[in-house]
């Protein structure tokens, strides 16, 4: 058990270090730096050089890398160049929005997507089956941001049920989280489609297996058979769920742009445009941690859901 945990931690640290180094180099390979951006078109070369010096960007790549790693080991992600305050504060401000959005989208895609898929698989050729196939085709062919605009047009502009922007100016609170429903649905649609197709496929697989025939011939009700099928179909879906959560995070970048949400996606985009290296690095750290964490959670869930995996070999 200790060896397993140690292995997990080591793998996390290694992944983090490799990804961080790549991002560190990639973002500095972009032409222009924060001083260039801040200087804009109205500053002289001399004042841009002054700003570069004041921001610590004039140091060599090696010096910056050592400085960055050294601070990171002490738990310091540095200060955002653009916001002139600690990166940790910047991320802390944005994480709740993205997490709430992702969580809502995850639940919606799980309930509707998987639910739809299971129902479709249990009655092939039936109403839900046709609905699922149609929905999945449409949802996976059209771009996410298009759904976002349509939802805004219908529910915010025409019906006035929702505000146009994802959050009120006072930010995220329990009361304002319903504002996130439109962006969460937008985010959920492609994942729901994937889960629907997968759920349907898994159920169809299970339907043709021996134990189902046995159960039916024993005279078990359709409902009981259905429950057996579903509980056997689910473990196969778990790995995809983990991947989906990762996909949700990247999806938030687009959705946050459309709905003007102050989340991690907006921070990352803004950080890249402004060449705010510490922020880009900080978001990377967070993203890697989340991905690795979610995959670990998926592994554990798999173990719990499928007793066969727990048996010693």
């Amino acid at each position, binding site marked *: 058990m200790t060896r397993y945990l140690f292995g997990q931690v080591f793998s996390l640290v290694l992944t983090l270090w490799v990804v961080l180094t790549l991002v560190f180099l990639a973002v500095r390979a972009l032409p222009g730096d924060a001083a260039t951006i*801040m200087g804009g078109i109205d500053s002289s070369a001399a004042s841009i050089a002054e700003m570069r010096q004041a921001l610590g960007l004039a140091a060599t790549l090696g010096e910056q890398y050592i400085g960055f790693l050294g601070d990171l080991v002490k738990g310091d992600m540095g200060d955002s160049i653009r916001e*002139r305050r600690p990166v940790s504060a910047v991320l802390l401000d944005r994480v709740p929005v993205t997490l709430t959005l992702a969580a809502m989208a995850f639940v919606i895609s799980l309930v509707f997507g998987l639910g739809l898929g299971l129902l479709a698989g249990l009655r092939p050729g039936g109403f839900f089956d046709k609905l699922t196939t149609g929905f999945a085709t449409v949802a996976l062919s059209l771009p996410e941001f298009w759904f976002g605009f349509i939802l805004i047009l219908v529910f915010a502009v025409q019906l006035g049920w929702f505000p146009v922007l994802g959050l009120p100016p006072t930010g995220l609170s329990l009361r304002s989280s319903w504002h996130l429903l439109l962006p969460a649905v937008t985010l959920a649609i492609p994942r729901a489609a994937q889960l629907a197709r997968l759920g349907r496929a898994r159920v169809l697989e299970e339907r043709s297996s021996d134990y189902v025939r046995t159960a039916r011939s024993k005279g078990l009700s359709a409902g009981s058979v259905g429950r057996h099928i579903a509980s056997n179909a689910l473990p196969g879906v778990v790995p995809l769920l983990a991947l989906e959560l990762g996909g949700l995070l990247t999806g938030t970048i687009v959705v946050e742009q*459309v709905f003007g949400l102050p989340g991690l996606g907006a921070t990352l985009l803004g950080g890249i445009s402004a060449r705010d290296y510490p922020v880009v690095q900080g978001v990377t750290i967070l993203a890697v941690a989340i991905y690795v964490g979610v995959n670990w959670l998926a592994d554990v869930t798999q173990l719990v859901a499928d007793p066969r995996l727990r048996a010693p070999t």
Partner: protein
Amino acid sequence: MKLKILVAVALSAVLGLASAQTLTMAMAAQPDTLDPQVTSATAAFQVSKSIYDTLVEVAQDGTIIPALAGTFSASDDGLSYTFNLVATSFHDGTPLDSTDVKATLERIMAEGTASPKRSEFAAITGIDTPDESTVVIHLSQPQPALLASLASGWGAILPSEKLAEGHDFGNAPVGTGAFVFQSWLRDNAITLSANPDYYKGAPQLAEVIIRFVPDPAIQLQGLLTGEFNVADTIAAADRELVESNPALTMVEEPSGLALVAAMNTRRPYLSDPRVRQAINLAVDSITVLEVAYAGGTPIGTFMEAGSPWLPDDIEPYGYDPEQARALLDEAGVPDGWTIDMPLPQPYDAHIQAGQMVQDYLREVGINAEIRIVEWGVWLSDVYGEARAFDITVIGHTGKLDPSGRLDGYGIESENYAGYDDPVTAELIAQGAREPDTAKRVELYGEALHRIHDAAPFIFFGTPARAYAKQTSVEGFWITPLLDSFDFRTATIND
């Protein structure tokens, strides 16, 4: 009697409710910081305008009028300026006095602050504070542009006690302005509340909320649902929608923008003025203005249309492809000459203009290869040391003083076009030092003539500034040339 009291109470309650107005404005760009001394971004000053005040400010007609300095005067030799401060306080309660002005100016002049506008105050040799309400600024040479610099957003006066403490003005601004900073939720909104003790009279709005909405389509939607009262970016294609809606108004007013296609005069063939003139003649600037920028007034040199500094006798180049081809032949430009045109991705209008330029140039045998690049890459290519471009399209915002626009032109290393002409450079430098306005007009006029002849740019013109608001919003205005937002007299009349 009781009825009268009841009515009076009810009336004041209703009036009280009616006067608690909040104006929500949608802005596409976001400030990088609210510290006026460490940025040059227009978006930053658009917001900080409401929080801080300057010694002098720009009125709606473009003239410089008293602000925190109730009266001001310059000495005859132009080497010292005296400002007499009004009695007012900062939002933290500390009264405004001459030490605040001195501390503010010293900070923007300090190397450690690394202000992009530091050079505008370089001529200041000393700041005297003979008493609490008087400031005397001494210069090493006459600088007629000083008032313009002090009227700009970066001339905002900061409280000296907070300066001494190293206060973080970037995230928690404290000024004397008409609105008090409440909160800044990054990528979301900035909330300001009215300053009831504002020295020019308390604003009628109780609150201003500035929301950051990068997408013009969403800005329009918000305007339609009433979520936004003013929207600063409306796509040209949507203007008709706004104009045809009685609840909305499209505001078009003169801007100070000079739209140009800059040429890298260090490059082969582009170093020849005949080639640059030919390129000007090959492009129909009026059509480019109409199609890409929804109209505007053409210009013939590097100064916005309608500027008092623009000589009357400078004609735009006009459209003459025949003459263009003749000049290109004369200069020995081979047919099919290929040039590199990077265009800035965030600006659809510039991209469209660039594509039109490419079409026009093809007609005269020049092959312009377009690269649409991200803003940071564009800045690095065009303004960075590499100067990796042949031609590009951009707009230069208006400046309060011609020196703000023209400084550096004529000195190869100081302007991105690499335009090198010692005579022009000397005229511009003299103009910056000349205290007599009539002589300045002459000096700059001559320089602008020379710039027209040398044609380092294709001169397109000056478009109108356009933004949309709900018709019920009145009294909101955008500062001429500085383009900052002024909410001090704004109201919403339902």
